[in-house]
Structures are given as structure tokens and as C-alpha cells.
């Protein structure tokens, strides 16, 4: 006796993901044209030792590229360094005149 045959549908369905902006893709920021007078925001997202690594990295960056300033970037309005990032973060970064952001996570 032959085994029953099954015609099955997909548990996933469509191939397209639904991004926060619908089907719109978010363009990546352009590269820094040069390293003169640039302000880099350091964003620490909770994880253990991410703060220490970012501080060490900022130290190396400013030693090798004196034109760069690194600042601790709060993860949103009324939040502290190390808090979970909030949706107000991009606006805050713009207000602070940040040219680029380095985000770190830990293990």
C-alpha cells in the first residue's frame, strides 16, 4: 500500500519582509568625506563592558585622528548612557550635530 501523498502550503508565505517603512528601503548614510572636525556619537546599548570598549575605542580614534571628537550619545531624550535606545534618538543625534554613530553590543 502506498503512503498518502500531501500537497502542502508554505508556513512563511510571501518572500518580502515588511519593513517599518512599508516596502521602502532605508538608504545607508554616505561615508564620511574626510576626518576633519567630525563628531562621532558613542551609543552603548546596555551590554556588559560595551561602555568600556567604546571609551577605549574613542581614545584610540582621537589619538590617531585628532580632527575627530567622540561624545557619549544618549539613547534618546531623558535617557542615560546605557539605556535601551528610544525612537527619539535620531532627532537627538541631529540636534547634537553628530556626523556618525558607533553602536556597540556585548556578549
Amino acid at each position, binding site marked *: 500500500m502506498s*503512503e498518502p501523498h500531501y500537497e502542502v*502550503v508554505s508556513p512563511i508565505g510571501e518572500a518580502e*519582509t515588511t519593513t517599518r517603512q512599508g516596502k521602502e*528601503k532605508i538608504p545607508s548614510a554616505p561615508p564620511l568625506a574626510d576626518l576633519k572636525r567630525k563628531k*562621532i556619537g558613542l551609543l552603548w546599548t546596555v551590554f*556588559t563592558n560595551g561602555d568600556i570598549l567604546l571609551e577605549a575605542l574613542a581614545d*584610540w*580614534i582621537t589619538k590617531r585622528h585628532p580632527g575627530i571628537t567622540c561624545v557619549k550619545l544618549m539613547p534618546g531624550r531623558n535617557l542615560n548612557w*546605557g539605556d*535601551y535606545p528610544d525612537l527619539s534618538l535620531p532627532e537627538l543625534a541631529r540636534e547634537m550635530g553628530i556626523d556618525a554613530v558607533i553602536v556597540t553590543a556585548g556578549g
Partner: protein
Amino acid sequence: MGIVCKGFGTSTRLVARAEGLAHIRMVELPPPNIAVQNPEELRECAEKVVDEVIAALSKPADGAVVESGRSATGHPESIIFSGDLEAVNEHFLNNVWCDGLPVIPPTVAKVEAMLRYTDRKRDEVIGILAPRRLAATVWKIAVNGVMAGCRPEYMPVLIALIEAIADERFGVQQVGSTVGWTPLIILNGPIAKELGFNSGQGVLRPQAQANITVSRFLRLALVNIAGYRVGETDMATFGRNYYPVIAEAEDTSPWPPFSVDRGFASGENVITVQSADSTSHSFLSEGHGEDHLRVIAHEFGRELGGQMFVPMEHFGGEVTPIIGLTPLIAGIIARNGYSKDDVRRYVFEHATVSAREADVNLNRHQLGLNLRESVRLGRLPAVFAQSDDPDRRVPVVHRPEEINIVVTGSPDRNRSFIAAQFGHQGFRVSKAVKSPANWASLLKQKDLVN
């Protein structure tokens, strides 16, 4: 740009892509893991990657990423494979569309049978599930329900469950964190009996079909709709298997049901979901009401006063651990005059940890962090820094109201459990289970069929 530990590159790119960022800048740190490195080692680590970081900022972002289990294309109702039971299961295993256990083949007929138990449209989007951000339509919920072995009549519960995890407060995007927590589901209301959920002996054992298959459905939805795959987007260090649904023993509980604590009317069908890393051992207690409470508070403090103190301090200002009590223990406590609020207050006041121990745990998380600093930052209420005596006792939750009490399990046993919760990672969300208008007649038909 992002800096991640070795092994998190694929996960980062997949999540970024689902969020709409096809190209990102990222540098992977050399192993082992910054959390176990001392400041000197971290400084060396930073020096190793500093040029790479600057180079990444100075050139266009890139976006190559490979993931397992590619999506099926075309109409959701299209036949994507045909074969016998073994072949179907091989296909699903190869595509990482399951949990490693055999699935019931999701044929159109089986899915249609599920859809009879809801009056919502098959293409209605119940929620968008991160990290992959696929739409959880009623159809896809039915497909994954079939695969999990759910009976068609479970459909209203499955839809409510997806509504709950799609709620932004739940934070479904955190399911794949290294904690490896698993959603814990609590069901209240007459639907639990109607559908045959176990609320008694061995409630957390995989035996009653409703309890275990509904929970399995949730795992399959997380794999197939949210897109969680171990080692790609699911970065659980160990992980946990799914817990069978906890149905509350409402008939034998001396108190109003948990769903009433959650703001629903008594008798309403309600599902609640929240994170749990584990459920504690089932501990014994004896004697009068306060004797039981003393033991429960001690175990509660022990369970939450160690490393779990850090999420309490850091993960969003509210944690909602569960105390699971058998009807026997709940009855003894109630007969001694304690309401649920009294129990919460008692446990809040008596489940404590020394300030010294809390400070040690906070400092492990962030050098220099302690209770006083946490209060200053607004993460903890003032009660945590009332003096500088390191031997003073402090609570292990912020407020008594955070403590959930659920009556369940073997009715005559004197054991309880604690299930810790991770704040904004899997925050507690409750949703009404909405059955279709013809629910009563559907249930009658079900009984005739069964």
C-alpha cells in the same frame, strides 16, 4: 555603524535588512566576548579594530548576507511541495520551517478547517513579527497551527496569542537574545475548559494536547513568521523548550482569576504572554497561611535576588514575575485572611536581598553601578537607597503590583513555583480571546466529530 562580538554578524545583518537597511557598516570584534574581558584586554581589543572602524565609516556600507530557509514565493495558498509524510517533513526540516519534531502536513483542507473557527478574513494581518517582519495573517496562523498539531477549534486562541506577541510592549524582537528566554502563556476563561486545556496535575508536562500544541504553535510562528533561526537571528546561549500553556484552575482558586488582575471581566477569555527564562524548582511549604507565605517569599527573594536583580534594575522599570500556587496552598492562604493584594504586599516586603549583594550584581553589569546610582538615574525607586548600610535589605521587584499570582497545578499538593520575567524583553501582554459569532454551534459540531 555597529560593533558586535564575533558570531553576531549574520544576526545583525538579517535584523538590519528586515528593518529596511539593506546595507550597513559593521565590525566584528575578535573572540572571545567583551563581557569576560578586563579593561586592559578591552583596550587591546579596541586598538585591534580602530583602523577597521575608521575605514568602515569612510567607505560605503555593504550588505552581503546568507540565511537558511528561504521564503516560499507566490500566493500564500500556493502548493509549495508535495510528497509523503516523510518527504514533507524532510522538506520542512531542510528549510528550517519547524522545531525539529515532525509536523502535520499543512494541506489546504487542513488549513481551511482551522479557518472555520474564526470569522476573521484569511488575509487579515494580525501583526508584524520582528526580526524578519513578516506579516502574521490569519492564513499563516492557521498553517502554523496545523503544523503544530493544534485542533481547528484552537484557532481563536492562536490568533489572540499572535496579537499579544505582536504588541510592541511585548518586544518580540528580543526573543533571540542570548538570555534564551521562552514565552510563557497563561490562559483564563471558560474557553480553557471548552478546548480541553489542563489546569491541574502536571500542567507543565507535555501531555494535554491543547496546552502543548498551542505553545508549539507559538514556537513555529516565531520560527516561520518572526524568522527566528538558531545561530542566525536566535542567539540564545542555551535556550529553553516551549512551556505548555498554563491554564488557571479558576474553579478551585479562592481568588478572582489572574485575568481580572489584568483588567478583564471575570468569565472573559484572556491569554497572557510574557518572558520566562525558567520556572523555579517546585518548592514545598507547610503549616498555616503565613508559614506558606514565609517560604514563598524566601524562594521569591532567592530566585530574583541574584543575577535577576540586574534586569529588574535595567530592563525597563517593570518586571512581572509569576508565583504559581496550587489550589491547596492558595486556599490555605486565603482561609487565613489573605487576599491576592495581601499576598503581593507580603512577598514584596519579605522577599529581599542585602544591599551589598545587589550592589555586587549591579557592578558586575556596569562598573561603578550601585543602588544609590540606580536611584539617581531614576531606574529604581527611592526605597532602594534609604541608607548606606550595606546589610540593609532591599526588595527584588519595584512594587507589589508587579507580582503575578496564578493558581494552577495538582489541586492537593503543597508545592509552588516562581517564574522570573525580563522586563522589556518579553513584557507581559494580555489579549481577549475572541471567538466567532457561531462559537457555540461550532463547539457542538466539534463534539459530534470527536
